[in-house]
């Protein structure tokens, strides 16, 4: 049976947010989920990746078909999602496809906003969780480490990640087109969504002075404000604090506008018409689009920010092409390693290598020092050297013929390295 890597899951390309949310793995339950994953019989190794854009299981198996089935059931677990309902949102990558997908994810080529830097850190985090639980083995260790080095290579060799591309970086870039410096500015978070939190972190990294957090659940506002050394305010009171803010990020789940044009006009007067940068991160929108008609107000919604990223993506088309070429190279090299990872070809290669050494040395000796030997004596020497090689190889070969595929992969990888059997991608 051929060893295979596969990825089963949902991502932003085919699955809407509601589906991704339902399938996502809670951080506290991740270790247990990894153990459950390992309990599935066709799965030899597994890593779970669960971010807001994707919920994907990366697995190594020797029985691809039944593993796919088992993984789909695993993903649908407690959720009563009918398989066929899940099916149309599901993405399944097998073999080289799967390796390519993992490399592209790591290099942020598959991100909603191509080139955003967060995904690599997230991937490393999920991998190390799996490694500590023990669900990642030889194949996935190699595959993930390779994906990290591919990501690094793409970062340094291409311009894919060189510009601000994530929505939050786009927000920072815009802030710098409005404001001279951020050190004396204040940001207000309306609602404590993941995206707005991320944007706030970016702004803080650029030195923004103060943070005001308003959230419907006041406890969450306090928690977040403590995180940022900011000031929590009750949600109902946020209009009173609005005049203190220079950047306002809205991400509440409100069905209607929480900020009207008239309200902003009042705020503007109160702040003597100093410019105000409003970022609407929520769908449906939090801020009335008519606000943008006011002087000294700059209102951007998530689409507008995405538009910024889109622009960057167009400019980087050629860079992305370069990145895809690197991906293909690395997939090839990984694939050569993986297909050599089976016991049988390794045993064959090992035997061939030993046999070549034996033959070479034997011929050399028989042609020189043992020149006078009779054919009978030569046969005896021949038999003896063959026996020595067989005896030496016996123990290693027994270990290579493991029934446990995960251990087998480990021994095969070790043997190939110890005996220096050609591993094309090693530099």
């Amino acid at each position, binding site marked *: 049976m051929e060893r295979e890597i596969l990825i089963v899951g949902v991502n932003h390309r085919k699955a809407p947010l509601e589906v991704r949310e339902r399938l996502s793995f809670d951080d506290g339950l991740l270790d247990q989920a990894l153990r459950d994953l390992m309990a599935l019989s066709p799965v030899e190794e597994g890593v779970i990746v669960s971010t807001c854009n994707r919920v994907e299981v990366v697995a190594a198996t020797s029985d691809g078909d039944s593993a796919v089935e088992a993984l789909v059931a695993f993903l649908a677990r407690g959720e009563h999602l009918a398989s066929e309902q899940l099916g149309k949102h599901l993405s399944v990558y097998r073999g080289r496809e799967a390796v390519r997908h993992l490399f592209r994810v790591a290099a942020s080529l598959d991100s909603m906003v191509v080139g955003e830097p967060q995904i690599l850190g997230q991937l490393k985090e999920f991998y190390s969780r799996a490694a500590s639980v023990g669900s990642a083995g030889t194949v996935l260790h190699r595959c993930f480490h390779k994906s990290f080095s591919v990501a690094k290579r793409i970062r340094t060799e291409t311009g894919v990640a060189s510009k601000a591309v994530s929505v939050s970086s786009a927000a920072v870039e815009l802030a710098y*087109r409005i*404001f*001279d410096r951020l050190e004396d500015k204040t940001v207000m978070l309306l609602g404590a969504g993941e995206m707005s939190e991320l944007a706030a972190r970016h702004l803080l990294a650029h030195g923004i002075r103060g943070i005001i957090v308003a959230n419907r659940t006041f406890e969450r506002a306090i928690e977040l404000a403590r995180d940022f050394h900011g000031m929590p305010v009750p949600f109902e009171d946020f209009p009173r604090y609005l005049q203190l803010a220079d950047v306002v990020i809205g991400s509440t789940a409100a069905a209607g506008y929480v900020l009207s044009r008239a309200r902003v006009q009042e705020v503007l007067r109160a702040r003597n*018409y100093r*410019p105000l940068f409003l970022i609407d991160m929520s769908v449906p929108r939090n801020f009335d689009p008519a606000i943008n008609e006011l002087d000294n107000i700059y209102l*951007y919604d998530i689409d507008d920010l995405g538009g910024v990223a889109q*622009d960057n993506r167009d400019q980087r088309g050629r860079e992305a092409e370069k990145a895809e070429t690197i991906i293909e190279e690395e997939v090839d090299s990984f694939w050569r390693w993986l297909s050599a990872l089976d016991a049988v070809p390794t045993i064959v290669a090992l035997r061939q290598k030993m046999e070549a050494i034996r033959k070479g040395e034997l011929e050399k000796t028989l042609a020189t020092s043992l020149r006078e030997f009779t054919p009978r004596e030569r046969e005896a020497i021949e038999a003896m050297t063959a026996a020595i090689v067989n005896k030496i190889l016996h123990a290693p070969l027994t270990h290579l013929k493991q029934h446990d595929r995960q251990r087998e992969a480990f021994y095969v990888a070790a043997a190939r390295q110890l005996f220096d059997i050609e591993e094309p991608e090693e530099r």
Partner: protein
Amino acid sequence: MTTVSLAVALALYLLSTASFIVHVITGQASTRRVAIAFLACAFAVHAASLGVRAFLLGYESIATFQQELSFIACVMVGLYLLIAARANLTVVGALVTPLAFLFTLSALAFNAPTPALPKRLQNVWLPAHVAPAFLGYAIFAVAFCLSLVYLLQERQLKAKRKGDLFRRLPSLETLDDLNHRLVTWGFALFSIGLITGSVLAKETWGAMWSWEPVEVWSAVTWLLYALLLHARTVGWRGRKAAALTIVGFIVLVVSFVSVNLVFPGKHTGTFG
């Protein structure tokens, strides 16, 4: 001699303008340094040329339309070099430099011999009137360029248009702050020029105010800039302030040209 040095300065302005344009289009950092270097050389040559002429004549001479333009261009460029050292205002330079080029070009093109300065005008009030007034004009010219860039950046932000060019524009806050400061200084100098001018008028013509075209125009311009500064205190910042700065400068140019070329009064090089 001064004509030759002015021509050299003119060539350097042209080279600097070209480098600025290349920088704005490509964003290469090296072209920006080249543009600034050319501009600094042009300024040095231009200022030296003005200095040599003043030395030869024995007094500061900003008597003819051409000399006025040349003086304004030189001060504008000096001022720009001064502020460009602090903030990245390359795009503003791409406006200031061609403007300086145009002014210097017309100064060369309409070059007329400097008439001798009448004895009665050779007193302390003439430089006290002319210097601040033209310094003010130069400052207003730079403020005008800043305002143009402000309106461009503001429109792009409102329209949510992106691109490398707009990323190279200075921030709205930078532009607005600088504009405010420049207009304040320009207004102060312009006001001094008006006051010393009326003293000079009293000394030479006997009346502080005689409804000269230049006096009327100057009063209108002064009122416009006064209005702009006042409006800022009640929240007219940003786009409105930039628009008003542009209107103020256009009025200034119209008055300058019309007074000098269309309705020459006692103020032009003839000294009535």
